[in-house]
């Protein structure tokens, strides 16, 4: 049965980030916009875990937690507090409230999952891995193509890395030896992109698979600015990459 996670935050952005962090796991993430709504939802849904913001209108996180602890049916539900404030005084205050853990914003989805796995057991969603695979990987003729999204963030990078290993294994088993990494949709380089490019190239080279990178002239120039990627030749079109691979 899917794990039920209740995300209580007045910011839709944060609720969506929490939801995305759990996307690869067999979880139902239910949402509430403030403590009052969160309390009502918790009573109705009996979640396995609550991710609770502190500063919210109507009823704050600490007020909701106080009510939660008074209810025998809800008081054992583990709570992870989210706070934008990392000050010592704030941290001490949070820990005194009886929460299991806390996270200071900004946080990465993987960090949240790491904390959550200390409290509950998360199971990967197999179908999700397959869907992700279809989202980024395709085959044209006898060439495997990995197309990176416009904004490559860490969760997407982790998902791609997970899929890449099985893709390369399958390529080795079927004798397909051509791979194209398409970064042309990207709006610019960042550390996540650089690390992923290097990882993809090394993985292909170790498996003796020919690889080419497609990008825009601007991205090509940016890659030249990093020591790790300065030697990479970037093809400016799919045709160029296909003929070179």
């Amino acid at each position, binding site marked *: 049965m899917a794990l039920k996670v209740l995300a209580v935050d*007045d*910011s*839709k*952005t*944060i609720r*969506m*980030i929490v939801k*995305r962090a759990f996307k690869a796991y067999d979880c139902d993430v239910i949402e509430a916009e403030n403590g009052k709504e969160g309390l009502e939802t918790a009573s109705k849904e009996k979640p396995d875990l609550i991710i609770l913001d502190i*500063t*919210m*209108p109507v009823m704050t996180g600490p007020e909701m937690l106080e009510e939660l602890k008074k209810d025998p049916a809800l008081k054992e539900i583990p709570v992870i507090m989210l*706070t*934008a*404030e*990392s*000050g*010592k*005084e*704030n941290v001490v205050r949070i820990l005194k409230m009886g929460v299991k853990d806390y996270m200071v*914003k*900004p*946080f*990465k989805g993987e960090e949240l999952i790491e904390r959550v796995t200390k409290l509950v057991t998360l199971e990967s969603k197999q179908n999700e891995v397959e869907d992700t695979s279809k989202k980024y990987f395709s085959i044209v003729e006898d060439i495997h193509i990995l197309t990176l*999204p*416009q*904004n*490559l*963030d*860490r*969760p*997407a990078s982790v998902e791609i890395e997970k899929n890449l290993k099985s893709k390369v294994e399958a390529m080795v088993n079927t004798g397909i030896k051509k791979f194209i990494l398409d970064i042309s949709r990207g*709006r*610019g*380089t*960042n*550390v*996540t*992109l650089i690390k992923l490019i290097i990882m993809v190239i090394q993985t292909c080279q170790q498996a003796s698979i020919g690889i080419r990178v497609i990008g825009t002239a601007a991205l090509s120039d940016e890659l030249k600015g990093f020591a790790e990627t300065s030697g990479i030749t970037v093809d400016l079109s799919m045709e160029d990459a296909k003929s070179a691979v």
Partner: protein
Amino acid sequence: MPDISALDLRGFISGAMNEVFDTMLSMNIELADEGVHGNVGGERIVGSVGFAGKAVGSVSVQVNEAFARSITAAMLGMEECEIEGDEDVHDAIGELSNMVGGGLKSHLCDQGLTCDLTIPSVTTGSDFGMEIKGWERKESLVFRHHEQLALVNVYIKANG
């Protein structure tokens, strides 16, 4: 009471902005040279949070609409065309100011200037100015991500 004029506000805000952009958006930003005009141009979106206690003040983050959409898409891990509407963009910019303001608030509290943070608010428009008077410190920092600019303003004074 700690001396507000001695606080390294520029260094702290710069660190907080870099951390938020790197962690939440996987975007690199850099502090522009002092003297670079922080006119972000076009339709502007300003996210701000206030703090009140032993220190009183506000932190605002101002970007133009195009950059705000890039930030929102990056924060939510989606393409810009998938953004549902202005509400999502405003919420993301409000949250961005909340994270930067939350970091500053913690810094102030650790320095003995205990204070509480307000819920973020968002202002949009193309033809408005902000004039706040009576503050002990005002810092304006301009950050650059490729061609896009983000302007951060901090106003602060001791209370009592």
